[in-house]
């Protein structure tokens, strides 16, 4: 990934529709430690906007999101 942060865990949400990518992300983040980075991969175009909203509301940092060949990748750092 771009930047310097390493990925601590990857969550595969390919094929899942709303609201599952957001819910699975929240469940995964809850089990991680502060400062760790979660990579989430989804095929749901709605997750581009939804993950931003989720990050804004929960305060967990969305370091980067990108789109490639129909895949949406998100890098989230657990902040608390």
């Amino acid at each position, binding site marked *: 990934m771009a930047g310097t942060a390493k990925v601590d865990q990857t969550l595969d949400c390919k094929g899942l529709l709303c609201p599952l990518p*957001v*819910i699975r992300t929240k469940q995964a983040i809850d089990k991680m430690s502060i400062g760790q980075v979660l990579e989430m991969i989804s095929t749901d175009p709605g997750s581009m906007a939804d993950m931003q909203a989720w990050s804004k*509301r929960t305060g967990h940092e969305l370091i980067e999101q990108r789109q490639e060949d129909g895949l949406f990748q998100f890098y989230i750092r657990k902040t608390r």
Partner: protein
Amino acid sequence: MATTLDKSLNDLIEAKVKELLDQRVESLVEEKLKKEKESRKKRLAIAVVSKGTIETAYAALILATTAAALEMEVGVYFSFFGLNILKKGNQDSLKVVPLGNPAMPVSMPNIVSVLPGMTALATMMMKREIRKKKIATVPELMEIAIESGVKLWPCQMAMDMFNLKKEDLIDGLPDAVGAATFLEFAGDADITLFI
């Protein structure tokens, strides 16, 4: 003469001090209230009442589970036909009713959708799409909701009306409550929905 002047001066100072103090206290209280509002969790309250159908369950449960994922506090009140969604073993057998629903993907006139078997047919078709597209099922969302601390309140009056006991409903629910409990919760909600 001097004492009169002193007195009016004192009065003036007193009035000014009081005014400044009032202003200060007011702004402090306002600030404190604002901070409290910002620090407390957002709250979502949903009343599921109108129907006990598959789309009603989806609307309530998708919003409830997502709100929980957004770290909101969520309470859903199931009354009247909405209570049907909480009945044990019912989560897999909820129906979609095509009668009087012009938005069905395969539209049919009401005179056809009134025929026996049409609700079952429409439900079967919708469930096939849900499976095919890997959409979360109602039992799955229900489980996520309970796990993430969403309160799914059964309405006591509706339970009495439909002769339902606690053991007729799915496990993991809070005790049945009345309208006052839900309204007390909803009174502090940031979002309230009626489905």
